[in-house]
């Protein structure tokens, strides 16, 4: 039996924006696939291109976006760029749906919750008002909203942040999409509610067999939730692996740095955090060499002149883009050399405290 084609295939996707300052390369050659029912976590700092990546997949970019030739997105075997307008309209909602960091961006503040859920059901499924209302109630129960009948008649501002996010999940699920894209769904919520929402997404996913792209800036959020993880930096995927491999054999210095910056509750209080110094590069510039080099403890001459490509590490499904992968002898040598001079080839001062 031939292997089933993945649900989603993203091939060398590039998304540029025409801005007053020049061409901003928000996503610059990202490839990955996602199987039916599978979850991939996409992790990276603010501005690394996570949202633009999924907006490109959803085909909901602003008009200043440029997608250079050669970028491909196949969903269920279909090239999403070739969809007709009417096909595209029904595509969101029925095939793919998205939830956002701030639930208010997808909710209308002046419409009752019930109307907002039923609207999308009626639009996509052509259901009657009555049928749509019943389905809405069912969804409210499914996403764990107490007193669903009462809540349907309320406005978004009458709900807590967690409840609002549940409502957007209900709307996203209304038409049984095959793929749910969750763009930092819990970043604006506190940890207890974050836990509730992540648990909810996991159980819904199991129940409905959806695939999911879970975006976050916190490796902790995806560790227990995603089967695979892709780490993005400055518009590029710098490491991908299944979750266990990624955590046990972190290869890319950026992945390692993200991991180390998390405060761990099991560490003694006042443990100094290994913050990543500096900030991601300005993506309007023509970037040469490794994009992480200015912030990387291991950077060598080669990192400044050559751009590392994503390549297989030899472990199944584990790919990474670094010349001096963490854990390798070359990496240890690079660090020793930099520590000896106190400065990396890219000018990062290793003697100063790791913060400022």
């Amino acid at each position, binding site marked *: 039996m031939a292997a089933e084609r993945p649900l989603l295939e993203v091939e060398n996707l590039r998304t540029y924006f025409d801005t007053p300052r020049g061409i901003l390369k928000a996503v610059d050659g990202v490839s990955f696939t996602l199987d039916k029912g599978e979850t991939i976590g996409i992790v990276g*700092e*603010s*501005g690394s291109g996570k949202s633009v990546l999924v907006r490109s997949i959803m085909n909901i970019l602003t008009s200043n976006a440029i997608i250079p030739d050669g970028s491909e997105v196949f969903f269920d075997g279909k090239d999403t760029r070739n969809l007709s307008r009417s096909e595209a309209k029904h595509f969101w909602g029925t095939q793919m749906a998205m939830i956002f960091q701030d639930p208010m961006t997808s909710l209308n503040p002046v419409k009752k919750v019930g109307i907002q859920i039923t609207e999308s059901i009626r639009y996509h499924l052509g259901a009657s008002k009555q049928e749509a209302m019943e389905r809405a109630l069912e969804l409210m129960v499914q996403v764990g909203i*107490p007193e669903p009948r009462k809540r349907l008649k309320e406005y978004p501002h009458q709900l*807590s*942040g*967690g*409840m609002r996010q549940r409502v957007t999940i209900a709307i996203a699920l209304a038409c049984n999409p095959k793929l749910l894209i969750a763009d930092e769904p819990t970043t604006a*919520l*506190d*940890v*207890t*509610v*974050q*836990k*509730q929402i*992540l*648990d909810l997404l*996991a159980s819904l996913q199991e129940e409905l067999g959806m695939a999911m792209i879970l975006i976050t*800036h*916190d*490796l*902790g*959020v995806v*560790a*227990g*939730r995603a089967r695979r993880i892709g780490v993005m930096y400055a518009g590029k995927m710098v490491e991908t692996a299944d*979750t*266990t491999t990624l*955590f046990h054999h972190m290869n890319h210095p950026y992945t390692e*740095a*993200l*991991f180390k*910056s*998390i*405060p*761990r*509750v*099991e*560490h*003694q*209080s*006042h*443990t*100094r*955090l*290994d*913050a*990543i*110094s500096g*900030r991601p590069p300005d993506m309007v510039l023509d970037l040469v060499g490794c994009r992480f080099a200015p912030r990387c403890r291991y950077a060598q001459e080669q990192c400044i002149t050559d751009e590392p490509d994503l390549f297989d590490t030899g472990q199944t499904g584990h790919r990474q883009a670094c010349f001096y992968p963490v854990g390798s002898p070359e990496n240890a040598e690079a660090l020793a050399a930099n520590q000896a001079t106190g400065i990396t080839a890219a000018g990062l001062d290793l003697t100063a*405290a*790791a*913060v*400022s």
Partner: protein
Amino acid sequence: MAGTGKVHMRGTEALVSVEDLVMEFPAGRRAVVHAVSGISFDILEGETLGLVGESGCGKSTTGRAMMQLPSPTAGSVRFDGVEMTELSKEDLRRTRTRMQMIFQDPISSLNPRRKVKDIVAEGLSIWHNDAGDTAVQKVNEVLDAVGLDPEVVSDRRPHQFSGGQCQRICIARALVLDPKVIICDEPVSALDVSVQAQILNLLEEMKERYGLTLVFIAHDLAVVKNVSDRVVVMYLGKVCEVAGPDTLYAHPAHPYTDVLLASIPEPDPDHPVSDRQITGELPSPINPPSGCRFRTRCEKVQDLCSEEEPELREIAPDHFVACHFPNEVPVSVNGN
């Protein structure tokens, strides 16, 4: 008294003591929001006190009430021997320079039209009539201290900066007045983990360098633990538990602390996601549950919990809990 007890107070040696703090807001038709209902805590000089709890439990209200923004409905806030709630307007304005606050949303708490140097100098010109060279020097010093190059940033405006950099500007603005106490209200909640680590480290450095006393408010116990010397766990306007951060982690006594700990996402795929999840929603502070306010969501609830409010009591040295049926903790733990 409706308070949750004061056995954890350390008496006169504290720099700040908050006692029986109550904050209520009218909510129309004779309804009242019971935002904070009789909480007490104190802070020693040079200490960082963490305030942790979920959204709506009254953390910000407590922080603002300490600053008298607005003054509490009832209760006392003593700061360096002065009763803040009884100060005249003018004295209060002076005292407030020594107690500063920074907020969760760094970008929106900066005036977008002003230059960074003017934002940071704002307090100076108001408080010390301190224009000219000394002011410029002071502004440059604090900008430098928070890791911003004064030459590069002074003439720029906030929108040119990232969230993390804006938070540095806010910290500089607070530092410029040489405060004794800084109340940090969720200073890292809106930031990426990588930037969060930079700001947490920076706060620790500033505390050291300027001899600060900090109140650190957050909803994530892992974050609070990293910077705090003592932690107060709050729920729906009440105090649940008070202890050193390491004790709190090793031996949580209150069922709500258990939940907070179980909610922290572990960056470790071998660590199974806890099946403990807080059930339901925070009850309305307009009509809080009788007895123990956590009882509607507590796994260990008994009849007594709705009848009688648990008072804070010491269950181990320097470890206090307000629960009728707390978790067992070893009594002989050696500090934290």
